[in-house]
């Protein structure tokens, strides 16, 4: 009886070991990337870590945060649909600045805000065209329109 119980316990342990191993094998790429990332970032400041992890857009975002007062409203004009991700994160990092996302300069001109037209149009404009550069930058509406018209 005792032997049988010991065999059963071994079978259970083996079954769990196989299950855990399958999870560990599946986790390996992510664990490896996570540890490598942590090791390479460990001595850097938080700003440098973010630059490394989030890419070249982050220093530009930091600069924008310095240039634009927290109480300002900002128009983020996206060059095309692929920019919606970077635009959304720009919205996140610029908070508490009020950022309004526009889909192209025509959208800005017409004040179309995904069905909401009752908000004033911000004078400060950030132009995001990741086909040309992943870096968001301050621009005038004329500059945006010019680049928009010469888009490849």
């Amino acid at each position, binding site marked *: 009886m005792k032997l049988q119980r010991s065999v059963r316990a071994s079978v*259970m342990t083996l079954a769990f070991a196989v*299950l855990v191993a399958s999870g560990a094998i599946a986790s390996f790429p992510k*664990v490896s990337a*996570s540890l490598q990332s*942590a090791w390479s*970032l*460990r001595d850097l400041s938080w700003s440098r870590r973010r630059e490394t*992890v989030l890419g070249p857009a982050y220093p530009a975002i930091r600069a924008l945060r310095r240039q634009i007062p927290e109480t300002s409203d900002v128009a983020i004009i996206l060059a095309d649909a692929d920019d919606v991700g970077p635009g959304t994160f720009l*919205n996140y990092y610029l908070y508490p600045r009020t950022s309004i996302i526009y889909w192209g300069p025509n959208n800005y001109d017409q004040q179309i805000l995904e069905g909401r037209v009752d908000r004033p149009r911000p004078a400060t404009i950030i132009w995001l065209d990741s086909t040309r550069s992943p870096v968001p930058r301050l621009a005038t509406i004329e500059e945006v329109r010019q680049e928009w018209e010469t888009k490849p």
Partner: protein
Amino acid sequence: VGDEALTGLLITLVYFGVIGAGVGRLLRLDAHGSRLDRLATRFVVGVGAAGATLFFLGVLAVPLTVITFGSLPVIAVISWIVRGRRTAKPVDLGRYPAIPTVIMLIPLVIVFIEAAIVPLNDWDGRAFWLLKGKAIAHEESIQGPFFQGLGARNLHSHYPLLMPMNAAVVFRFAGELDDRHVRWLHALTAAAFLIMLRSRIARLHSAAVGAWISALLAWLPQFSFDSYGGAVSAYSDLPLAVFAAAGLLQIVTDARPVPVGLWITFALLTKNEGMVIAAALLFCYFVQILRTAGFPVALSRVVLAGAPVVCSLSLLTIWRGRIPLEYDENYALLARDLLSKLTVVGEAAAAFLVRMVDLRGWGIFWPAVIAATAYLLWRRRNGVVLIAGIFLAIGIASYIAAYTVTGWKLADLAASSANRLLLQLIGAAALILAEAAQQLLGSREPEGESTVTVDAPV
């Protein structure tokens, strides 16, 4: 690592730990296991209780200032003192075997290292959840300009706010809207849950089974390491999975209605899917009590457990009525199309269920759960299978129905959401695996049934 990251760790541990200690003592949720088991349970309770309470205060237009945030742990301490010393000695759950304990700790240490050093780089955490947390901390309200659509872009404006509330607390006490402070909230919730799960399964079966189940969950990529919903992200799927599992464990180990209702309330206020989870848990609770105490008792217990859930749902509905809907699916409206879209059900089910055999997300976890279910049915161990099976069936059927009516392309929807939805159901899966393991080990008395207490109303 830097002092900045440790500021968030300290705030998170103390704030939610203290609130959880007060609520846990009041409701006797932390009565079992080792000191670590009880601390972990308190932390999970604290995360739920703080977020839910602050949400209620927010709906009632109480300013969400540092004073409001700070008053919760003060009340918790007072409740701890008033409640007095523990009268019963904690139940000894036995010694956890060292090997699975170490196996469980390794991924947790890796998650902590990432939380301490690597900047947050997820999608939903930054796009929705933490942005809402920042807005609450900045505007001291959940009805201010941001939520009215007059501030920064607030995608999914009707999402429940339990986790953003908790994030707002950390932002405010840290003194800056920087997400490095908040990473600990999600990492510690995952860790505390695994320790709590271990003790609950130990109570139900044995310390060895509890330790192995927690070790297994800790190594699931989707649980720990996935940046789309795992412990290293700031998504709300993992907290929802935690509250759902805690509710289910409460039902099968200690079915007092108030704690059951509390866990269900936390789930409801964490994500939209919390509604499905809440309905599933209430039904499981009804069935569990019905099996042991008959229809009238089952009905009265469900009414008691459902009371805080209905109150929370009412407040959530009132709050949503004040907030313009921005970029969200209206599932109540879409559900009307379900009958006309029945031809898509097969495709939707396939898109969702195929993720169960996604080895990169789950290893062989879900196939093992299916095998364990078959094994338990063959052994006629229907008790836990029934409760966990009901929960899984309602969850999976609801998610497939949502896939069926949505306007999304199914492949894209499944790729972005199926693993996270499955994560929300892991509590039931863990229960099934634990029961099967105990059967394999040689069955003890069916404690899952005998430990259910239906005589204590609170």
